[in-house]
């Protein structure tokens, strides 16, 4: 049995209404299954359950709303199934469209912040080192754990909002210090020009995902080149390809000032060498179609930061794209782009902006084809989700292909 506090027990028994009781009981029941002896209070949440997978999710969220539930801690929302800034570009049939919108609205009624992004950490939601949080969505989880040093497990649909309403999560796994220890090391030895190539970082993520799985790894040898956007890309790819929820980068991430610190003073059990050849092979493995067959380009998985949009504008250099070119980002980023004229530059170049959702999570791209992308996560999901072949390449290559007449 899980040891609830008096306050938690009172909520589970209905003292704060039926919705809060349902949420608290779900967290408590999950804790029992996960072997957690008690719950840990959390200071924030990030919710993935707002993406439509069927009417059950809408029923669950609306039942919580009808039962008077509200989130007890600040909670941001991951992508929905609709682009509410440009609804026509999502081609959902009428019933699914209606239920997907009701789902999004229900999460707003629960008190969540309508951020509609998989990069909340670059849109105002940045927990500090050691903060206990309940986050969902695999890339957001790996970023908040690894780059920010906060503490969460991979909380999936239904449990994420239940933790936000309960204000607590099962006290197990990555909430605990000992579980955050790196037990393997990835020793990267590659020339500076390889590490300075943005395409290397999703490739490192693919290697991490395949070799480490859910084991915690410390990556050594990349200190000088690790920017936040590169770590975002690495983590997102790793979390898609494997079950990576936390990694350390020696000399960069908060829990890894040294390899010894990342390993909590126990030597790593395995050291995996990663060479330039390994990186190039991993890059190649993310593609499964020829460049000549590309029919569309997409960037922004996770959602583009303002810096990544700037890099796109620089690469475009005033040219227009000749292929559909989708930039997936948050509505907050779109607002910023509209306020300073960068949106107009993108529009003039023929770029299609997708906000609140993304091209592999909802039907935006028509038919089958080949998608070119600089995102390891798009490369991983496009074949299964939108029946597209993929070509993985750096942003500059994607732009070069897109502007070809």
């Amino acid at each position, binding site marked *: 049995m899980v040891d609830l506090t008096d306050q938690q027990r009172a909520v589970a028994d209905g003292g704060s209404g039926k919705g809060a009781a349902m949420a608290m009981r*779900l967290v408590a029941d999950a804790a029992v299954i996960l072997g957690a002896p008690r719950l840990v209070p959390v200071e924030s949440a990030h919710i*993935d359950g707002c993406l439509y*997978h*069927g009417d*059950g999710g809408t029923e*669950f969220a609306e039942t919580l709303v009808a039962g008077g539930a509200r989130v007890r801690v600040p909670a941001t929302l991951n992508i929905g199934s609709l682009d509410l800034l440009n609804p026509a570009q999502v081609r959902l049939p009428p019933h699914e469209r209606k239920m997907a919108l009701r789902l999004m609205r229900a999460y707003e009624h629960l008190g969540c912040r309508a951020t509609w992004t998989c990069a909340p950490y670059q849109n105002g939601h940045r927990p500090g080192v050691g903060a206990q949080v309940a986050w969902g969505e*695999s890339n957001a989880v790996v970023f908040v754990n690894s780059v920010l040093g906060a503490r969460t497990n991979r909380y*999936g*649909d239904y449990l994420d909002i239940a933790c936000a309403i309960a204000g607590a999560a099962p006290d197990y796994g990555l909430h605990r210090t000992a579980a955050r220890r790196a037990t393997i090391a990835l020793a990267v030895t590659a020339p500076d020009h390889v590490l300075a190539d943005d395409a290397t970082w999703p490739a490192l993520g693919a290697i991490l995902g395949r070799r480490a799985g859910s084991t915690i790894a410390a990556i050594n040898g990349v200190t000088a080149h690790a920017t936040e956007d590169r770590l975002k890309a690495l983590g997102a790819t790793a979390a898609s390809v494997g*079950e990576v929820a936390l990694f350390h980068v020696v000399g960069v991430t908060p829990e890894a000032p040294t390899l010894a610190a990342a390993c909590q003073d126990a030597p790593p059990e395995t050291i995996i060498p990663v060479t330039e050849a390994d990186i190039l092979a991993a890059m190649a493995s993310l593609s499964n179609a020829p460049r000549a067959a590309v029919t569309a380009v997409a960037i922004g998985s996770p959602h583009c930061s303002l810096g990544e949009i700037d890099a796109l504008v620089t690469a475009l250099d005033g040219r227009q794209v000749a292929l559909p070119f989708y930039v997936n980002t948050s509505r907050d980023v779109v607002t910023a782009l509209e306020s300073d004229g960068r949106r107009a530059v993108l529009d003039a170049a023929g770029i299609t902006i997708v906000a609140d959702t993304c091209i592999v999570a909802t039907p935006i791209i028509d038919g089958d084809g080949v998608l070119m992308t600089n995102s390891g996560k798009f490369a991983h999901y496009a074949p299964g989700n939108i029946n597209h072949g993929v070509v993985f390449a750096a942003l500059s290559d994607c732009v070069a292909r897109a502007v070809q007449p």
Partner: protein
Amino acid sequence: MTLAARTIIPGEGTGEALTLTAPLSLWGGVDPVTGTIVAGHHPERGVVLTGRVLLIERLVGSSSSAAIMLELIRNCTAPAAVVLGSVDAILAIGALVGTALDYSAPPIVLLEPWPTHPPQGQLRVTAEGPAHSQALINATPD
């Protein structure tokens, strides 16, 4: 024949055994409207798991598999029972939400160690509550 297992989600279910010979993600791998396995290249692709006692040694990833479990429950296309080779909270959460919304969820039990020859034919799974209690998998005569 009786196998001892451990309860993840309590309940009782009876049906013909269906053992998956490769790992499966419910999300992207099962059509919740028809209960059919749709995962590309899966050895049991095309098989309907509705009403079967599903034996899966290992599930794959995606936390959105909880949503597919809930849809199967709501659509009455769920298996009669699920026997897992390792604890999977995601599937369990789908079942917990189904129960909370007053639907009928199949029992889910943990069978460790996974048998070399999983049971075949008609099975009854009886899982006592709460989680971690004893559960039984019985072969029943047709």
